[in-house]
């Protein structure tokens, strides 16, 4: 197993674990954490698989483009987490609940 494939598989494992937690946990804070684990997984796949010369089995060289992209992704993830936490805190202050309503989809 080559190094990029190893990191990609670790990243995918994080994505799957995050997705599972997002679905099974009802508490909103856990859902936000699950999304954070998922995004870390995606970033790991992105960085792990990036190669300088695509399509060749050249020795690994750092490719700055995906790093810049992942940096942007991290900023987005932080913003999403902040927005989600603000909304959750506000909902808890208003209603005392920290879960989603179940009465949708009727």
């Amino acid at each position, binding site marked *: 197993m080559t190094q990029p494939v190893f990191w990609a598989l670790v990243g995918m494992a994080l994505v799957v674990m995050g997705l599972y937690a997002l679905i099974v946990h009802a508490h909103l804070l856990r859902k936000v954490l699950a*999304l954070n684990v998922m995004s870390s997984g995606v970033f790991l796949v*992105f960085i792990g698989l990036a*190669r300088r010369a*695509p399509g060749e089995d050249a020795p690994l060289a750092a490719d700055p*483009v995906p790093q810049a992209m992942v940096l*942007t992704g991290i900023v987005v993830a932080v913003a999403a987490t902040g927005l989600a936490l603000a909304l959750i805190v*506000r909902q808890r202050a208003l209603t005392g609940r920290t879960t989603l*309503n179940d009465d949708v989809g009727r």
Partner: protein
Amino acid sequence: MPLELLGPGWSGPHWMLAAVFVPLSAALLSFLLPRLASPLGLIAATLTAVAALALTREVMAEGTTRTLLGGWATPLGILWRADGLSAALMAMTAIVGVMVSLYAAAYFRHEAHERAYFWPLWLMLWAALNALFLSADLFNLYVTLELLGFSAVSLTALGGGAAALNGAIRYLLVSVLGSLSYLLGVALVYHGCGSVDIGLVAACVPDAPRPAMQVALAAMIAGLLLKTALFPFHVWLPPAHGSAPAPVSAVLSALVVKASFYLVLRLWLDVLGGGDGDGGGRWVAELLGALGAAGVVWGSVLALRQERLKLLIAYSTVAQIGYLFLAFPLALTGDAVAWTGALYLALAHGLAKAAMFLCAGNLLRFGGHDRIAELDSAVHRLPLTLTAFALAGVSIMGLPPSGGFIGKWLLLKAAFEQERFLLATVILLGGALAAAYVFKVVGHAFTPAERERRVRSVPPDMEWSAIFLAVAAIVLGLTLPLISPLLQVGTASAASAAVTLMAEGYA
């Protein structure tokens, strides 16, 4: 080689930049100057619409327009491209945007808190939409998707009530999940192609390692379907669209869901070449068509069962989104008629659904509630609003001469020509169910309620902007010769365009 940006006079690239940077700067400015938010917002909305419509005219006259941001060539630079598809959607956004802005200025007149946050978020959302329609770079598209998602979520929560907050949180979780799935796809595409420029990726997909590319595109499309609220991913949409303030619901239903649909279409046509070539693409198209058909039926039935007007309109959006996906199996034969039909339907739905939500806002303001059974002869007191609702309903049902009619007729034509009678039945059934739920509302508006209620007056601007949009949805049906050249998608290949561009500026 830097592109010539400062040529004589204004041309396509200038209008492109203006369509994004005017609302973006106005968003920041109106956040800093909350007292001036309304006038600033209205001026910015007008300028943005002028830029978008001028760009559309340019694209109609000159064909696809491009610009490289900062003069950096692909693959490192970011390409902006306006073709017929992006121009048509930007023009629709401009018309809806101006009317919603006029409406919002009246709607939030006495609510300083909401007004101070509405304008920056709405202008940010508009900038993100225009940037999304213009970007020809998968990662830049991810950034615009997130900008769009965050401003849409914040707008949903604007009212601050418990239902709005809950809807907004659900919307945010779904939106982030969809974007992450999309980003995972981008990561795999970058791995396979070493670029995220749509043209370069399209040129590389046929030679790239197949399983990785299939997983990548599947992840991207699945994430976008979640954001588009295609059945069965629609459960987040009604609570979010139903609990937001009226101008916000109009924007979310008319414009925001179209953005992710547009992106699915871009990937399908420009990167996958319309799904032809092998059995896998055919299978995916049939699946999308089946989900679309299920969405048409399920969304319409649920719309019919709703007791609150805004939820009825929101479920109607689920049904109308379904229609857009019926074009995927119908276009497999290489026939562009189905695409033109679906896009016509997308434009008509944008105008009509915005009108409907604005009408719902008027009725809510008027009676203090939106329970359909208690609309209480609203037709006598808000005749303009009810006229607008009925006209928008004509387009949603697909009766002539509306834009919705043209869209459904083109889809039906494709379905009959290919003897896909099941899809044709779904198209007709969806129209009949739409008629049922529109008449349910109109019928109750003619019936007096049992007891008198206290009512509030509705400012005339709010009635006129609704009726303008509804009339626009009808008029759209009469302008087919004018608009259809813009919607001839699925014929021109982005790959060849990118090759030309590279030959010009990148070599």
